[in-house]
């Protein structure tokens, strides 16, 4: 990498010395840059502002070429106390972590491998007593997954298992966990091969933190942690949009048959601008002459599809005016049944 140095000489006339490392780089990449014939050129600090300007341009373009300053870990700047940070991390959430276990939760596999490599390079044969966070991550993930499913089944008792899975997958998706991990302060604590750490590292570390909490305290504390950090991400999100039903009309038929109601009948309620490229049709689904659900749509088939979904929402008690999720202190003492599963769509069709 080319480095720029400004040398202040002791003589009265000040010179700016440009060091040029590889001419090839300049020629290939930046054709607009002015090339200097010699590798060292003493450019007099002239009073001519035009020359000074072109000198500044040269500096600027070279710096751009080199790229931005590499992001460094705070420990390289001098102000970093890993133990204190680990302790503060736990205290921030009001949790009493076992510091040893929590430290383990931040160690990545790539970091351990890197350390082993370093030892080999140095020629030492010491065994490294560092465990990575994979096991803790698995523990944490399994607990979070189990708890979230149980919580969702408690909150949405009539929703099908496929819907529960869809919401669960959304909450524990990589993007969501990365987003949470970023805003919790994992970045500096993570010990990985690269800094800043990669996206999957945050995901693993967050799961490992939950695992560390299980080991330090108990499962109940870890479940409260999940309840306070991961589940509130559902607030403000339309839960119905997370699960995509493949055949809403078929599902609606099955649901109505089960409840011994009449077959669903779709009727066109209103329609406007039918012959234009932006039509609007309102379709309502009736059963025994009673309106189950209605919806607008771009075409009649789309409107029918959406109306069937609306009807299913009503039947499953997933409408917008349902009671809100139990969160915060109220939800700390819920009696969740971990063994219960909601019924699946396939069960409905068979019956």
């Amino acid at each position, binding site marked *: 990498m080319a480095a720029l140095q400004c040398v202040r000489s002791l003589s009265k006339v000040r010179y700016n010395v440009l060091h040029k490392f590889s001419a090839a780089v300049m020629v290939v990449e930046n054709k607009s840059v002015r090339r200097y014939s010699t590798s060292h050129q003493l450019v007099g600090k002239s009073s001519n502002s035009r020359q000074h300007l072109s000198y500044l341009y040269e500096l600027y373009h070279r710096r751009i070429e080199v790229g931005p300053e590499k992001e460094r870990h705070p420990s390289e700047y001098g102000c970093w*106390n890993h133990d204190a*940070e680990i302790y*503060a991390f736990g205290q921030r959430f009001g949790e009493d972590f076992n510091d040893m276990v929590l430290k383990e939760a931040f160690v990545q596999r790539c970091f351990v491998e890197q350390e082993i490599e370093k030892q080999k390079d140095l020629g030492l044969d010491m065994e490294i007593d560092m465990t990575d966070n994979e096991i803790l991550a698995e523990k944490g993930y399994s607990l979070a997954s189990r708890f979230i499913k149980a919580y969702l089944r408690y909150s949405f008792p009539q929703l099908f298992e496929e819907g529960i899975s869809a919401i669960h997958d959304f909450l524990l998706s990589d993007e969501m966990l990365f*987003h949470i991990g*970023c805003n919790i302060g994992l970045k500096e604590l993570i010990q990985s091969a690269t800094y800043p750490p990669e996206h999957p590292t945050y995901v693993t570390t967050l799961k490992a933190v939950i695992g560390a909490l299980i080991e330090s305290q108990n499962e109940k504390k870890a479940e409260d942690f999940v309840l306070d950090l991961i589940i509130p991400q559902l607030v403000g999100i339309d839960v119905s949009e997370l699960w995509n039903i493949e055949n809403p009309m078929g599902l609606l038929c099955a649901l109505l048959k089960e409840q011994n109601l009449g077959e669903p009948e779709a009727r066109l309620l209103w329609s406007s601008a039918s012959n234009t490229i932006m039509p609007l049709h309102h379709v309502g689904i009736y059963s025994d002459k009673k309106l189950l659900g209605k919806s607008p749509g771009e075409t009649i088939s789309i409107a029918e599809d959406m109306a069937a979904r609306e009807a299913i929402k009503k039947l499953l008690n997933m409408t*917008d005016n349902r009671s809100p999720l139990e969160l915060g202190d109220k939800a700390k003492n819920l009696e969740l049944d971990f063994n219960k599963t909601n019924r699946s769509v396939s069960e409905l069709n068979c019956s």
Partner: protein
Amino acid sequence: MLNVNMGSNVIPSTFLRNVMKNGIGRHVCQLQRVTLSLCKWSPGSAPAREFVEQDMVDFTRQNPGIVFYLKPRRHRSPVLKAEYLNGYTEEIDLTKLSREEINHWLGLLKGRSGQQIVRLRKDFHTDTPSIQGVWNPFLFKDTELSIKDVRDPSLSEYISPFKSATEKLLELKKKSGAS
């Protein structure tokens, strides 16, 4: 730190938001670490030194979740650097500030979320602005519109708030006829 796509000649502004829905579950103090860099001898850092002697330990005891770093630097003015969980950093120059003012600043930094201070376009935010549902052109319309022919006179004729003379006469006739 601000995620905005604005023109370069625009004063940045943002909407109110609560990243990570802080407070709905447990409230997490967003201040991650504080670095106080001060000079051990210069008179400009005297209030900062007082703060270190008297208030710093109390602050750290009350806030175990905030890491407090002391950075003695010769011949430099005292600076308080706050780092937040979302990566935002803020530095406050403590020259010419008293010990009490340093305490106030620290209290302010602790209470803030890591969002950059920008003009708020709205003082409120909601993901569900509509409670009864969004209006649509057919919200209060009868379905007879789709059944009746659009040229049906009953749909377009003028409905007067007053009774016409003809109607009054016919009514009178009906009444007298009935009686």
